């Protein structure tokens, strides 16, 4: 069987290229359809693992501290991410609570757990147990993890309520902001490089 490891296929138009070495800030584009084929991967395994652990800490903060709190005529109330999932789960609309729970709590959590698991073994240049399954799940989860949307949603909610009552952003909101940026950085497509670095 011919060696195909050095080849790269454009997923948008099926063109075949040889892989290239990229320098900082460079990316390789498909000549036919203009899609990005390769992007420079600026993180080594240690750095990515360190960022994953950091993100896990921020996940805890984002989930256990209120995203924001309000006060109205001396009454106070605050809400965590889980509270907002619960708020959707009443009555006939429970299904959408499930979607929300997956997109803002469960998918990011699984991404982080899988990343830390895979990267811990990668640090010792080993493939983790169930490496293939973990890597495939990381691909599957990516489009359903919507923390950055949740972040914008929280900001819109602040403005929506600001006219009616007093709103205070909480620790959870700051953690959410950092977490969403970290996830974009560490759980992107470039984790596929692990396939090549771990024989």
């Amino acid at each position: 069987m011919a060696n195909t490891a050095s080849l790269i296929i454009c997923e948008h138009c099926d063109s075949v290229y040889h892989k290239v070495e990229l320098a900082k800030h460079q990316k390789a584009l498909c000549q036919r359809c203009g899609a990005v084929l390769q992007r420079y991967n600026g993180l080594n395994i240690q750095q990515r693992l360190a960022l994953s652990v950091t993100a896990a800490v921020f996940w805890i903060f984002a989930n256990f501290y209120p995203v924001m709190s309000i006060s109205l005529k001396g009454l106070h109330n605050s809400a965590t991410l889980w509270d907002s999932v619960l708020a959707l789960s009443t009555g006939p609309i429970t299904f959408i609570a499930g979607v929300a729970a997956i997109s803002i709590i469960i998918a990011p959590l699984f991404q982080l757990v899988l990343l830390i698991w895979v990267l811990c073994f990668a640090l010792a240049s080993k493939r983790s147990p169930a490496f293939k399954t973990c890597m495939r799940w990381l691909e599957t989860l990516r489009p359903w993890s919507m923390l950055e949307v949740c972040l914008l949603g929280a900001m819109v909610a602040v403005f929506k309520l600001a006219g009616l009552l007093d709103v205070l952003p909480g620790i959870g909101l700051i953690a959410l902001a950092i977490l969403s940026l970290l996830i974009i950085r560490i759980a992107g497509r470039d984790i596929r490089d692990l396939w090549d670095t771990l024989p």
Partner: protein
Amino acid sequence: MSEPVRAADLNLVLCHACGMACDLRGQPSHCQRCDAPLHWRKPNSLARTWAYLIAALVFYVPANLLPVMNTSLFGAGSESTIMSGVLEFWEHGAWDIALIIFIASIAVPATKFCALGLLLITVQIRSDWARQQRARLYRFVELIGYWSMLDVLVVALVAALVKFKALGDIEPRLGILFFGMVVVFTMLAAMSFDPRLIWEQEDDAGHP
């Protein structure tokens, strides 16, 4: 500029899960590297995309007509739909917030319907019109897809916060369910569309 070689002509196929170029000789059904199922094109791409798209269109109607939340403050209750939420911000002078919600909740789904419909029809008539632009359009649809979840999350947060019984209470309403379904179905539609079909030519019809 010479056209790059196509994977089909080399008997190669891309593994969608790990990005490996898999050799199709010997007819493997799974990727040698990650065990994900291999397919020449996403299975039943056009039929599935149409199905998800039409389902999303059907849900789009109640999503916009039914109220998404019910606000009662100091005893006065009001139901609001997505559009009335946008208008409320607009009238209060917060045009920037109004614009964000309008783009995320109304413009993005509408753009997705038009774009995916256009892609499906042009692929079905095997048009070679503006292929590069259509490829770019597909990537754009993929990119903007999940931002429509914005309104669902806003309603969730607001409803979780304002819980003061008689003094003030915000509850989600049925419209938000349909709206969420629109987002999920349009995302599934975009995922099941195979952009490689855009580049398919007449002579590819008989391929495996």
